[in-house]
């Protein structure tokens, strides 16, 4: 594990050189670091069935193309773009605009009165720092489970935006969705996680 962690410190250029040299630790590091985000993107675009295959193919194309990688985008964005292209080719042409007009609500209606005021107080959480949240094994489990149950597109947007720090523009590009769709998906994902933490706090 240690040698993998130390690779984290290397800059990307050095990492790519190591890959080109065929350094085993470098290969383990990139697969470990990026496989699951690539899967997230593939699942968001074509669903579960072909996602594994698309990601395997994306890895192969990426490794073949590596000597020509110019570093204009980060390695991560580049890998996600290759994955996205593969998934889209696989999907062929199909309308990519989602219909988000499905009556989804951030909070259920019963929480508000007719004028849209909250009926009950929003209760304070008794665990209120991220660190305290994380020390709580049960809650970790709640968050993991909720994350895995999110629809793939919500999961992919959440992963790229809130965990990987990608720009909205990049995310829209990778998933081939509009900015307003991406924002809605992100808010739904966050809201679902908020609900699960809230429910946990109440129990």
């Amino acid at each position, binding site marked *: 594990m240690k040698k993998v962690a130390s690779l984290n410190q290397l800059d990307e250029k050095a990492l790519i050189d190591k890959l080109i040299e065929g350094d085993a630790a470098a290969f383990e590091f990139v697969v470990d670091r990026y*496989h699951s985000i690539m899967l997230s993107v593939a699942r968001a675009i074509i669903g579960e069935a072909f996602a594994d295959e698309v990601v395997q193919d994306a890895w192969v194309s990426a490794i073949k193309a590596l000597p020509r990688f110019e570093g204009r985008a980060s390695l991560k964005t580049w890998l996600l773009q290759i994955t996205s292209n593969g998934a889209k080719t696989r999907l062929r042409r199909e309308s990519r605009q989602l219909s988000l007009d499905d009556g989804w609500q951030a909070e259920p209606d019963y929480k508000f009165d007719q004028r849209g005021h909250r009926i009950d107080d929003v209760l304070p959480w008794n665990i209120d720092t991220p660190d305290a949240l994380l020390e709580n094994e049960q809650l970790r489990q709640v968050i993991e489970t909720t994350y895995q149950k999110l629809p793939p597109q919500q999961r992919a947007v959440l992963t790229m935006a809130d965990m990987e720090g990608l720009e909205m523009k990049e995310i829209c590009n990778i998933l081939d969705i509009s900015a307003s769709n991406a924002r809605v998906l992100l808010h739904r994902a966050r809201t679902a*996680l908020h609900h699960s933490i809230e429910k946990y706090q109440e129990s």
Partner: protein
Amino acid sequence: MFECKDVAEEASNYLDGDLPLGKRVGLFLHLVYCSCCRRYLQQIRQTISTVNILRPQEQHDTDTQALAEKLRMLSKTES
């Protein structure tokens, strides 16, 4: 007029700075007198930072070590 329900809908856009000025001001004014919504926004913020630290992962059963090795072998034959 911004109500609690609108705050719940627009929370992410507000936090991410993607709300047009008019709505932004409306939401802000609502926050001035509504402690529920202040708390709600705080919790959404906290949810985001928790996810960021916890980094839940996609579930998969790929043997990543085997994949890494396969790719390494492939890169050898390529160069």
